[in-house]
Protein backbone atom coordinates (compact mmCIF):
# COMPACT_ATOMS: atom_id res chain seq x y z
CA UNK A 1 0.00 0.00 0.00
CA UNK A 2 2.79 2.40 0.81
CA UNK A 3 4.85 1.38 -2.22
CA UNK A 4 3.65 4.02 -4.71
CA UNK A 5 3.52 6.66 -2.01
CA UNK A 6 7.11 5.94 -1.07
CA UNK A 7 8.22 6.40 -4.66
CA UNK A 8 6.56 9.81 -4.61
CA UNK A 9 8.33 10.58 -1.38
CA UNK A 10 11.71 9.54 -2.79
CA UNK A 11 11.17 11.61 -5.94
CA UNK A 12 10.09 14.61 -3.90
CA UNK A 13 13.02 14.19 -1.55
CA UNK A 14 15.41 14.11 -4.50
CA UNK A 15 13.77 17.24 -5.88
CA UNK A 16 14.14 19.11 -2.59
CA UNK A 17 17.76 18.01 -2.21
CA UNK A 18 18.49 19.10 -5.78
CA UNK A 19 16.83 22.49 -5.18
CA UNK A 20 18.87 23.14 -2.05
CA UNK A 21 22.02 21.91 -3.75
CA UNK A 22 21.39 24.45 -6.52
CA UNK A 23 20.87 27.17 -3.91
CA UNK A 24 24.12 26.24 -2.16
CA UNK A 25 25.86 26.28 -5.53
CA UNK A 26 24.54 29.77 -6.31
CA UNK A 27 25.48 31.10 -2.90
CA UNK A 28 28.97 29.65 -2.71
CA UNK A 29 30.23 29.28 -6.26
CA UNK A 30 28.79 32.31 -8.02
CA UNK A 31 28.92 34.83 -5.22
CA UNK A 32 31.58 35.67 -2.77
CA UNK A 33 30.75 34.92 0.83
CA UNK A 34 33.27 37.65 1.60
CA UNK A 35 30.77 40.11 0.09
CA UNK A 36 28.72 39.70 3.23
CA UNK A 37 30.29 41.37 6.20
CA UNK A 38 30.76 38.87 8.94
CA UNK A 39 32.02 38.96 12.48
CA UNK A 40 32.68 41.89 14.76
CA UNK A 41 33.74 45.18 13.30
CA UNK A 42 34.67 48.64 14.44
CA UNK A 43 34.35 51.98 12.70
CA UNK A 44 36.86 54.60 11.63
CA UNK A 45 36.11 58.15 10.50
CA UNK A 46 37.94 59.63 7.55
CA UNK A 47 37.52 62.77 5.49
CA UNK A 48 38.25 63.08 1.81
CA UNK A 49 38.22 66.18 -0.36
CA UNK A 50 37.01 64.07 -3.29
CA UNK A 51 35.58 60.57 -3.11
CA UNK A 52 35.14 60.18 -6.88
CA UNK A 53 32.99 57.13 -7.58
CA UNK A 54 33.42 55.56 -4.14
CA UNK A 55 30.19 53.90 -3.03
CA UNK A 56 28.84 52.58 0.22
CA UNK A 57 29.86 48.96 0.83
CA UNK A 58 32.97 49.43 -1.31
CA UNK A 59 35.84 47.34 0.06
CA UNK A 60 38.47 48.63 2.48
CA UNK A 61 41.82 46.99 1.87
CA UNK A 62 45.12 46.74 3.65
CA UNK A 63 48.00 45.60 1.45
CA UNK A 64 45.36 44.76 -1.15
CA UNK A 65 43.51 42.34 1.15
CA UNK A 66 39.91 43.09 2.01
CA UNK A 67 39.50 43.92 5.72
CA UNK A 68 36.17 45.77 5.76
CA UNK A 69 33.85 48.03 3.86
CA UNK A 70 32.68 51.63 3.52
CA UNK A 71 29.75 52.10 5.88
CA UNK A 72 28.51 55.55 4.95
CA UNK A 73 29.41 58.57 2.88
CA UNK A 74 28.00 61.94 3.90
CA UNK A 75 28.61 65.56 3.11
CA UNK A 76 27.79 67.91 5.95
CA UNK A 77 26.13 71.13 4.82
CA UNK A 78 28.68 73.90 4.92
CA UNK A 79 31.65 71.54 4.69
CA UNK A 80 33.64 70.94 1.55
CA UNK A 81 34.98 67.52 2.54
CA UNK A 82 33.15 64.20 2.44
CA UNK A 83 32.89 62.23 5.70
CA UNK A 84 33.48 58.55 5.03
CA UNK A 85 32.88 55.98 7.76
CA UNK A 86 34.82 52.74 7.38
CA UNK A 87 33.74 49.55 9.08
CA UNK A 88 36.71 47.28 9.66
CA UNK A 89 36.91 43.71 10.89
CA UNK A 90 37.76 43.49 14.62
CA UNK A 91 40.70 41.24 13.76
CA UNK A 92 42.56 44.13 12.20
CA UNK A 93 42.57 46.55 15.13
CA UNK A 94 46.24 47.44 15.08
CA UNK A 95 46.09 50.27 12.58
CA UNK A 96 48.63 52.98 13.55
CA UNK A 97 47.20 56.45 14.12
CA UNK A 98 49.26 58.06 11.38
CA UNK A 99 48.16 55.59 8.69
CA UNK A 100 47.06 57.06 5.39
CA UNK A 101 43.66 56.27 3.87
CA UNK A 102 43.71 56.54 0.10
CA UNK A 103 40.99 56.06 -2.50
CA UNK A 104 42.28 53.74 -5.18
CA UNK A 105 40.74 52.53 -8.41
CA UNK A 106 40.96 48.87 -9.37
CA UNK A 107 42.43 49.09 -12.84
CA UNK A 108 41.66 51.99 -15.16
CA UNK A 109 37.88 51.65 -15.25
CA UNK A 110 37.30 49.52 -12.16
CA UNK A 111 35.47 50.25 -8.96
CA UNK A 112 37.03 52.38 -6.30
CA UNK A 113 38.08 51.20 -2.88
CA UNK A 114 39.75 52.60 0.21
CA UNK A 115 43.28 51.44 0.82
CA UNK A 116 44.96 51.93 4.18
CA UNK A 117 48.73 52.27 4.26
CA UNK A 118 50.23 51.71 7.68
CA UNK A 119 52.10 54.51 9.38
CA UNK A 120 54.84 54.10 11.96
CA UNK A 121 53.15 55.50 15.08
CA UNK A 122 53.00 53.36 18.22
CA UNK A 123 49.46 54.48 19.00
CA UNK A 124 46.63 52.48 17.50
CA UNK A 125 43.37 53.99 16.24
CA UNK A 126 40.48 53.20 18.58
CA UNK A 127 36.89 52.29 17.70
CA UNK A 128 35.19 55.40 16.34
CA UNK A 129 38.54 57.14 16.00
CA UNK A 130 39.57 58.92 12.87
CA UNK A 131 42.37 58.74 10.37
CA UNK A 132 43.52 62.30 9.83
CA UNK A 133 45.76 61.60 6.87
CA UNK A 134 43.85 60.86 3.68
CA UNK A 135 44.49 61.05 -0.01
CA UNK A 136 41.55 61.62 -2.31
CA UNK A 137 40.88 60.36 -5.77
CA UNK A 138 42.46 62.23 -8.56
CA UNK A 139 39.95 62.96 -11.29
CA UNK A 140 41.43 61.86 -14.57
CA UNK A 141 41.35 65.43 -15.86
CA UNK A 142 43.51 66.66 -12.98
CA UNK A 143 45.99 63.86 -13.49
CA UNK A 144 46.14 64.47 -17.20
CA UNK A 145 46.44 68.21 -16.80
CA UNK A 146 49.26 67.78 -14.27
CA UNK A 147 50.89 65.34 -16.62
CA UNK A 148 50.64 67.60 -19.60
CA UNK A 149 51.25 70.80 -17.64
CA UNK A 150 48.16 72.40 -19.14
CA UNK A 151 45.42 73.69 -16.85
CA UNK A 152 41.96 74.64 -17.94
CA UNK A 153 41.28 77.96 -19.58
CA UNK A 154 39.97 80.49 -17.09
CA UNK A 155 37.17 82.67 -18.33
CA UNK A 156 34.39 84.86 -17.07
CA UNK A 157 31.09 83.81 -15.63
CA UNK A 158 27.80 85.21 -14.52
CA UNK A 159 24.80 83.59 -12.87
CA UNK A 160 22.38 83.03 -10.08
CA UNK A 161 21.77 80.31 -7.40
CA UNK A 162 21.03 78.69 -9.92
CA UNK A 163 24.62 79.90 -10.29
CA UNK A 164 25.76 80.61 -13.80
CA UNK A 165 29.12 79.59 -15.22
CA UNK A 166 30.65 80.04 -18.66
CA UNK A 167 32.91 77.43 -20.15
CA UNK A 168 34.84 77.59 -23.40
CA UNK A 169 34.00 73.94 -23.90
CA UNK A 170 31.50 71.80 -21.98
CA UNK A 171 32.27 68.59 -23.85
CA UNK A 172 29.18 66.40 -23.70
CA UNK A 173 27.77 67.99 -20.53
CA UNK A 174 24.01 67.74 -20.66
CA UNK A 175 21.07 69.21 -18.76
CA UNK A 176 20.51 67.27 -15.54
CA UNK A 177 24.15 66.27 -15.15
CA UNK A 178 25.27 66.28 -11.49
CA UNK A 179 27.09 69.13 -9.81
CA UNK A 180 29.53 67.68 -7.31
CA UNK A 181 31.62 69.03 -4.49
CA UNK A 182 34.25 66.73 -3.01
CA UNK A 183 32.75 64.05 -5.22
CA UNK A 184 29.30 64.22 -3.61
CA UNK A 185 26.33 65.43 -5.63
CA UNK A 186 25.05 68.81 -4.41
CA UNK A 187 22.97 69.93 -7.40
CA UNK A 188 22.41 69.59 -11.10
CA UNK A 189 22.93 71.41 -14.38
CA UNK A 190 19.81 73.40 -15.21
CA UNK A 191 20.60 74.56 -18.69
CA UNK A 192 23.43 74.53 -21.21
CA UNK A 193 23.29 77.19 -23.92
CA UNK A 194 25.76 78.75 -26.29
CA UNK A 195 26.29 82.43 -25.59
CA UNK A 196 25.82 84.28 -28.89
CA UNK A 197 27.99 87.23 -27.80
CA UNK A 198 30.87 85.69 -25.90
CA UNK A 199 30.86 82.61 -28.15
CA UNK A 200 31.19 80.18 -25.27
CA UNK A 201 28.89 77.85 -23.37
CA UNK A 202 26.71 79.37 -20.67
CA UNK A 203 25.80 76.80 -18.01
CA UNK A 204 23.27 77.39 -15.23
CA UNK A 205 23.94 75.30 -12.14
CA UNK A 206 21.21 74.74 -9.62
CA UNK A 207 22.74 74.04 -6.24
CA UNK A 208 21.00 72.71 -3.17
CA UNK A 209 20.19 75.49 -0.67
CA UNK A 210 21.85 73.47 2.11
CA UNK A 211 25.23 74.08 0.58
CA UNK A 212 25.16 77.85 0.96
CA UNK A 213 28.65 78.20 2.38
CA UNK A 214 30.56 77.67 -0.85
CA UNK A 215 33.24 80.40 -1.09
CA UNK A 216 32.56 82.85 -3.91
CA UNK A 217 35.99 82.34 -5.42
CA UNK A 218 35.36 78.60 -5.91
CA UNK A 219 36.11 77.14 -9.31
CA UNK A 220 33.73 75.13 -11.48
CA UNK A 221 35.20 72.44 -13.69
CA UNK A 222 33.72 69.96 -16.14
CA UNK A 223 35.02 66.50 -15.27
CA UNK A 224 34.35 63.04 -16.63
CA UNK A 225 33.48 60.10 -14.37
CA UNK A 226 36.10 57.57 -15.28
CA UNK A 227 37.59 57.32 -18.73
CA UNK A 228 34.40 56.91 -20.74
CA UNK A 229 31.79 57.97 -18.17
CA UNK A 230 29.34 60.83 -18.32
CA UNK A 231 30.41 64.37 -17.55
CA UNK A 232 29.64 66.42 -14.47
CA UNK A 233 30.45 69.82 -13.01
CA UNK A 234 32.84 69.75 -10.07
CA UNK A 235 33.05 72.69 -7.69
CA UNK A 236 36.48 73.19 -6.18
CA UNK A 237 36.12 75.40 -3.08
CA UNK A 238 38.19 78.55 -2.85
CA UNK A 239 39.34 80.39 0.24
CA UNK A 240 37.20 83.50 0.25
CA UNK A 241 35.29 84.28 3.48
CA UNK A 242 32.21 85.29 1.46
CA UNK A 243 29.80 82.59 0.31
CA UNK A 244 28.20 82.22 -3.10
CA UNK A 245 24.67 83.58 -3.05
CA UNK A 246 21.71 83.28 -5.35
CA UNK A 247 22.61 85.32 -8.41
CA UNK A 248 26.35 85.30 -7.76
CA UNK A 249 29.02 84.77 -10.38
CA UNK A 250 31.58 82.02 -10.42
CA UNK A 251 34.74 83.60 -11.77
CA UNK A 252 36.96 80.61 -12.24
CA UNK A 253 35.95 77.83 -14.57
CA UNK A 254 37.82 74.98 -16.11
CA UNK A 255 36.50 73.56 -19.33
CA UNK A 256 36.16 69.94 -20.30
CA UNK A 257 39.39 68.29 -21.33
CA UNK A 258 39.05 66.56 -24.61
CA UNK A 259 40.88 63.31 -24.89
CA UNK A 260 41.58 63.97 -28.57
CA UNK A 261 43.21 67.33 -27.74
CA UNK A 262 45.35 65.77 -25.05
CA UNK A 263 46.47 62.90 -27.21
CA UNK A 264 47.13 65.37 -30.00
CA UNK A 265 49.30 67.53 -27.73
CA UNK A 266 51.12 64.47 -26.49
CA UNK A 267 51.86 63.30 -29.99
CA UNK A 268 52.94 66.77 -31.14
CA UNK A 269 55.20 67.21 -28.12
CA UNK A 270 56.63 63.76 -28.62
CA UNK A 271 57.50 64.38 -32.25
CA UNK A 272 58.70 67.90 -31.41
CA UNK A 273 61.24 66.48 -29.00
CA UNK A 274 62.36 63.87 -31.40
CA UNK A 275 62.97 66.15 -34.35
CA UNK A 276 65.91 68.08 -32.92
CA UNK A 277 67.35 64.83 -31.70
CA UNK A 278 67.08 63.44 -35.22
CA UNK A 279 68.71 66.54 -36.70
CA UNK A 280 71.70 66.20 -34.45
Amino acid at each position, binding site marked *: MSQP*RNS*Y*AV*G*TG*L*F*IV*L*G*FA*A*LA*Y*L*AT*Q*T*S*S*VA*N*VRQGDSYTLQTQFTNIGQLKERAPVKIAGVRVGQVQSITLKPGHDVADVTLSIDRQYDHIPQDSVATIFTSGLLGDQYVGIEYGSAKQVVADGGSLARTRSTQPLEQMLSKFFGAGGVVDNVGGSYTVKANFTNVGTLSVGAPVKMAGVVIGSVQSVRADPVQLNASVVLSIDKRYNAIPDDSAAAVFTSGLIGSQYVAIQPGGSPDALKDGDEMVLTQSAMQLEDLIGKFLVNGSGDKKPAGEK
Partner: protein
Amino acid sequence: MNVRLPSRENVVTRSLAQIGNSGLFLLTLLAAVPRSMRHVRETIRQLWFVGAMSLTIIMTCGLFVGMVLMLQLYHVLSIFGGTSASGMVVALSVYRELGPVVTALLFAGRAGTAVTAEIGLMRATDQISAMEMMAVDPIAYVATPRFLAGLIAMPLLCCVFCAMAVFGGHLVGVTWLGIDNGTFWSNMTAVVDVRTDIVNGVLLKSLAFGAVVSLIAVFQGFTTPPTSEGVAYATTRTVVASSIAILALDFVLTAFLM
Protein backbone atom coordinates in the same frame (compact mmCIF):
# COMPACT_ATOMS: atom_id res chain seq x y z
CA MET B 1 -16.30 27.42 0.63
CA ASN B 2 -18.69 29.96 -0.71
CA VAL B 3 -17.66 32.10 -3.64
CA ARG B 4 -19.91 35.00 -4.28
CA LEU B 5 -20.72 34.81 -7.96
CA PRO B 6 -20.00 38.13 -9.65
CA SER B 7 -22.95 39.89 -11.19
CA ARG B 8 -22.73 40.38 -14.92
CA GLU B 9 -22.71 44.13 -14.82
CA ASN B 10 -19.41 45.12 -16.40
CA VAL B 11 -15.75 44.20 -16.70
CA VAL B 12 -14.58 46.43 -13.86
CA THR B 13 -16.94 45.12 -11.20
CA ARG B 14 -16.40 41.59 -12.42
CA SER B 15 -12.62 41.77 -12.20
CA LEU B 16 -12.86 43.52 -8.85
CA ALA B 17 -15.11 40.72 -7.64
CA GLN B 18 -12.58 38.18 -8.94
CA ILE B 19 -9.77 39.85 -7.04
CA GLY B 20 -11.90 40.09 -3.92
CA ASN B 21 -12.96 36.45 -4.17
CA SER B 22 -9.40 35.24 -4.68
CA GLY B 23 -8.33 37.28 -1.67
CA LEU B 24 -11.03 35.65 0.45
CA PHE B 25 -10.05 32.31 -1.02
CA LEU B 26 -6.44 32.89 0.06
CA LEU B 27 -7.66 33.47 3.63
CA THR B 28 -9.67 30.25 3.46
CA LEU B 29 -6.59 28.40 2.21
CA LEU B 30 -4.37 29.77 4.95
CA ALA B 31 -6.98 29.01 7.59
CA ALA B 32 -7.00 25.40 6.35
CA VAL B 33 -3.21 24.98 6.72
CA PRO B 34 -3.40 23.45 10.25
CA ARG B 35 -6.15 21.08 9.16
CA SER B 36 -4.24 20.01 6.05
CA MET B 37 -1.34 18.93 8.27
CA ARG B 38 -3.24 15.65 8.53
CA HIS B 39 -2.72 15.26 4.77
CA VAL B 40 1.05 15.77 4.67
CA ARG B 41 1.39 12.85 2.27
CA GLU B 42 -0.96 14.57 -0.15
CA THR B 43 1.21 17.70 0.01
CA ILE B 44 4.31 15.60 -0.73
CA ARG B 45 2.53 13.93 -3.65
CA GLN B 46 1.62 17.36 -5.04
CA LEU B 47 5.17 18.59 -4.48
CA TRP B 48 6.36 15.64 -6.51
CA PHE B 49 3.87 16.47 -9.24
CA VAL B 50 4.35 20.26 -9.51
CA GLY B 51 8.01 20.31 -8.50
CA ALA B 52 9.92 17.19 -9.36
CA MET B 53 7.97 16.60 -12.58
CA SER B 54 8.70 20.19 -13.71
CA LEU B 55 12.45 19.74 -13.34
CA THR B 56 13.03 18.63 -16.92
CA ILE B 57 11.45 21.68 -18.54
CA ILE B 58 12.98 24.05 -15.98
CA MET B 59 16.48 22.64 -16.43
CA THR B 60 16.30 22.62 -20.22
CA CYS B 61 14.95 26.16 -20.39
CA GLY B 62 17.47 27.42 -17.83
CA LEU B 63 20.32 25.95 -19.82
CA PHE B 64 19.17 27.56 -23.05
CA VAL B 65 18.43 30.94 -21.46
CA GLY B 66 21.95 31.04 -20.03
CA MET B 67 23.45 29.97 -23.35
CA VAL B 68 21.62 32.47 -25.52
CA LEU B 69 22.22 35.29 -23.04
CA MET B 70 25.94 34.60 -23.10
CA LEU B 71 25.97 34.42 -26.89
CA GLN B 72 24.23 37.80 -27.21
CA LEU B 73 26.35 39.49 -24.54
CA TYR B 74 29.55 38.19 -26.02
CA HIS B 75 28.82 39.77 -29.37
CA VAL B 76 27.84 43.13 -27.87
CA LEU B 77 30.63 43.26 -25.30
CA SER B 78 33.31 42.21 -27.77
CA ILE B 79 32.80 45.63 -29.40
CA PHE B 80 34.12 47.25 -26.22
CA GLY B 81 36.61 44.52 -25.41
CA GLY B 82 34.62 43.71 -22.28
CA THR B 83 33.82 40.07 -22.90
CA SER B 84 35.25 39.11 -19.52
CA ALA B 85 32.28 40.88 -17.89
CA SER B 86 29.71 38.76 -19.72
CA GLY B 87 29.72 36.03 -17.06
CA MET B 88 28.73 38.43 -14.32
CA VAL B 89 26.07 40.05 -16.49
CA VAL B 90 24.56 36.63 -17.18
CA ALA B 91 24.56 35.83 -13.45
CA LEU B 92 23.08 39.18 -12.41
CA SER B 93 20.37 39.31 -15.05
CA VAL B 94 19.36 35.71 -14.39
CA TYR B 95 19.33 36.06 -10.60
CA ARG B 96 17.51 39.36 -10.50
CA GLU B 97 14.97 39.07 -13.33
CA LEU B 98 15.04 36.23 -15.79
CA GLY B 99 15.34 33.37 -13.31
CA PRO B 100 12.28 34.09 -11.16
CA VAL B 101 10.12 35.42 -14.02
CA VAL B 102 10.81 32.72 -16.60
CA THR B 103 10.57 29.98 -13.97
CA ALA B 104 7.22 31.37 -12.81
CA LEU B 105 5.87 31.59 -16.39
CA LEU B 106 6.95 28.02 -17.09
CA PHE B 107 5.57 26.92 -13.75
CA ALA B 108 2.20 28.52 -14.56
CA GLY B 109 2.14 26.73 -17.91
CA ARG B 110 3.41 23.38 -16.68
CA ALA B 111 1.92 23.02 -13.19
CA GLY B 112 -0.70 25.75 -12.81
CA THR B 113 -2.79 24.55 -15.76
CA ALA B 114 -2.63 20.96 -14.57
CA VAL B 115 -3.82 21.94 -11.11
CA THR B 116 -6.69 24.03 -12.51
CA ALA B 117 -7.80 21.32 -14.91
CA GLU B 118 -7.58 18.61 -12.24
CA ILE B 119 -9.59 20.54 -9.66
CA GLY B 120 -12.00 21.75 -12.35
CA LEU B 121 -12.68 18.20 -13.47
CA MET B 122 -13.06 17.08 -9.86
CA ARG B 123 -15.70 19.75 -9.55
CA ALA B 124 -17.35 18.92 -12.87
CA THR B 125 -17.55 15.23 -11.94
CA ASP B 126 -18.88 16.07 -8.45
CA GLN B 127 -15.86 14.59 -6.66
CA ILE B 128 -15.64 17.72 -4.52
CA SER B 129 -19.26 17.26 -3.43
CA ALA B 130 -18.56 13.59 -2.76
CA MET B 131 -15.70 14.55 -0.46
CA GLU B 132 -17.93 16.93 1.43
CA MET B 133 -20.49 14.15 1.85
CA MET B 134 -17.77 11.88 3.25
CA ALA B 135 -16.86 14.63 5.70
CA VAL B 136 -13.49 15.21 4.00
CA ASP B 137 -12.77 18.91 3.84
CA PRO B 138 -11.99 19.60 0.14
CA ILE B 139 -10.11 22.80 1.01
CA ALA B 140 -7.80 21.01 3.45
CA TYR B 141 -7.43 17.91 1.28
CA VAL B 142 -7.40 19.33 -2.29
CA ALA B 143 -6.69 23.05 -2.26
CA THR B 144 -4.19 23.72 0.52
CA PRO B 145 -1.77 20.85 -0.34
CA ARG B 146 -1.57 22.10 -3.93
CA PHE B 147 -1.07 25.69 -2.78
CA LEU B 148 1.65 24.73 -0.30
CA ALA B 149 3.35 22.49 -2.85
CA GLY B 150 3.53 25.39 -5.32
CA LEU B 151 4.84 27.67 -2.61
CA ILE B 152 7.65 25.24 -1.73
CA ALA B 153 8.42 24.14 -5.28
CA MET B 154 8.89 27.57 -6.90
CA PRO B 155 12.01 28.77 -5.01
CA LEU B 156 13.64 25.35 -5.45
CA LEU B 157 12.84 25.28 -9.16
CA CYS B 158 14.13 28.84 -9.51
CA CYS B 159 17.43 27.88 -7.86
CA VAL B 160 17.79 24.98 -10.29
CA PHE B 161 16.93 27.28 -13.20
CA CYS B 162 19.56 29.84 -12.16
CA ALA B 163 22.23 27.19 -11.61
CA MET B 164 21.51 25.75 -15.05
CA ALA B 165 21.62 29.22 -16.62
CA VAL B 166 25.04 29.91 -15.10
CA PHE B 167 26.15 26.49 -16.28
CA GLY B 168 24.84 27.25 -19.80
CA GLY B 169 26.61 30.62 -19.78
CA HIS B 170 29.81 28.90 -18.71
CA LEU B 171 29.41 26.29 -21.40
CA VAL B 172 29.04 28.85 -24.20
CA GLY B 173 31.35 31.53 -22.81
CA VAL B 174 34.27 29.50 -21.52
CA THR B 175 34.10 26.28 -23.51
CA TRP B 176 33.07 27.63 -26.89
CA LEU B 177 33.90 31.33 -27.05
CA GLY B 178 37.11 31.15 -25.07
CA ILE B 179 36.57 33.51 -22.13
CA ASP B 180 39.12 32.74 -19.43
CA ASN B 181 37.71 30.37 -16.83
CA GLY B 182 39.23 32.17 -13.85
CA THR B 183 38.08 35.61 -15.07
CA PHE B 184 34.59 34.27 -15.62
CA TRP B 185 34.22 33.08 -12.03
CA SER B 186 36.14 35.84 -10.28
CA ASN B 187 34.16 38.58 -12.05
CA MET B 188 30.95 36.81 -11.11
CA THR B 189 31.87 36.30 -7.46
CA ALA B 190 33.05 39.89 -7.16
CA VAL B 191 29.70 41.32 -8.18
CA VAL B 192 27.01 38.88 -7.06
CA ASP B 193 25.86 39.69 -3.54
CA VAL B 194 24.23 37.00 -1.45
CA ARG B 195 21.64 39.27 0.15
CA THR B 196 20.58 41.53 -2.70
CA ASP B 197 20.89 39.08 -5.57
CA ILE B 198 20.31 35.59 -4.24
CA VAL B 199 18.01 36.12 -1.23
CA ASN B 200 16.08 39.14 -2.54
CA GLY B 201 16.31 38.20 -6.21
CA VAL B 202 16.08 34.45 -6.51
CA LEU B 203 14.37 33.35 -3.29
CA LEU B 204 12.01 36.16 -2.35
CA LYS B 205 10.73 36.83 -5.86
CA SER B 206 10.19 33.18 -6.68
CA LEU B 207 8.40 32.64 -3.36
CA ALA B 208 6.03 35.51 -4.17
CA PHE B 209 5.48 34.23 -7.71
CA GLY B 210 4.89 30.71 -6.41
CA ALA B 211 2.22 31.97 -4.05
CA VAL B 212 0.48 34.00 -6.77
CA VAL B 213 0.56 31.27 -9.44
CA SER B 214 -0.63 28.55 -7.03
CA LEU B 215 -3.38 30.76 -5.66
CA ILE B 216 -4.64 31.62 -9.14
CA ALA B 217 -4.47 27.99 -10.29
CA VAL B 218 -6.32 26.59 -7.29
CA PHE B 219 -8.84 29.43 -7.26
CA GLN B 220 -9.65 29.06 -10.94
CA GLY B 221 -10.08 25.31 -10.48
CA PHE B 222 -12.46 25.74 -7.59
CA THR B 223 -14.60 28.45 -9.18
CA THR B 224 -14.89 26.98 -12.65
CA PRO B 225 -18.38 26.31 -13.98
CA PRO B 226 -18.76 22.50 -13.82
CA THR B 227 -18.82 21.99 -17.58
CA SER B 228 -16.12 20.93 -20.04
CA GLU B 229 -16.21 24.42 -21.55
CA GLY B 230 -15.85 25.92 -18.11
CA VAL B 231 -12.76 23.81 -17.36
CA ALA B 232 -11.14 24.82 -20.65
CA TYR B 233 -11.90 28.46 -19.95
CA ALA B 234 -10.57 28.26 -16.39
CA THR B 235 -7.32 26.65 -17.60
CA THR B 236 -6.78 29.46 -20.10
CA ARG B 237 -7.59 32.00 -17.44
CA THR B 238 -4.96 30.50 -15.14
CA VAL B 239 -2.21 31.07 -17.69
CA VAL B 240 -3.37 34.56 -18.68
CA ALA B 241 -3.98 35.80 -15.15
CA SER B 242 -0.76 34.22 -13.83
CA SER B 243 1.36 35.78 -16.59
CA ILE B 244 -0.07 39.24 -16.00
CA ALA B 245 0.22 38.89 -12.23
CA ILE B 246 3.84 37.65 -12.46
CA LEU B 247 5.01 40.47 -14.69
CA ALA B 248 3.16 43.17 -12.76
CA LEU B 249 4.31 41.81 -9.40
CA ASP B 250 7.86 41.57 -10.74
CA PHE B 251 7.88 45.30 -11.39
CA VAL B 252 6.51 46.09 -7.94
CA LEU B 253 8.95 43.73 -6.20
CA THR B 254 11.91 45.07 -8.14
CA ALA B 255 10.94 48.63 -7.27
CA PHE B 256 10.73 47.70 -3.59
CA LEU B 257 13.82 45.52 -3.37
CA MET B 258 16.22 47.62 -5.39
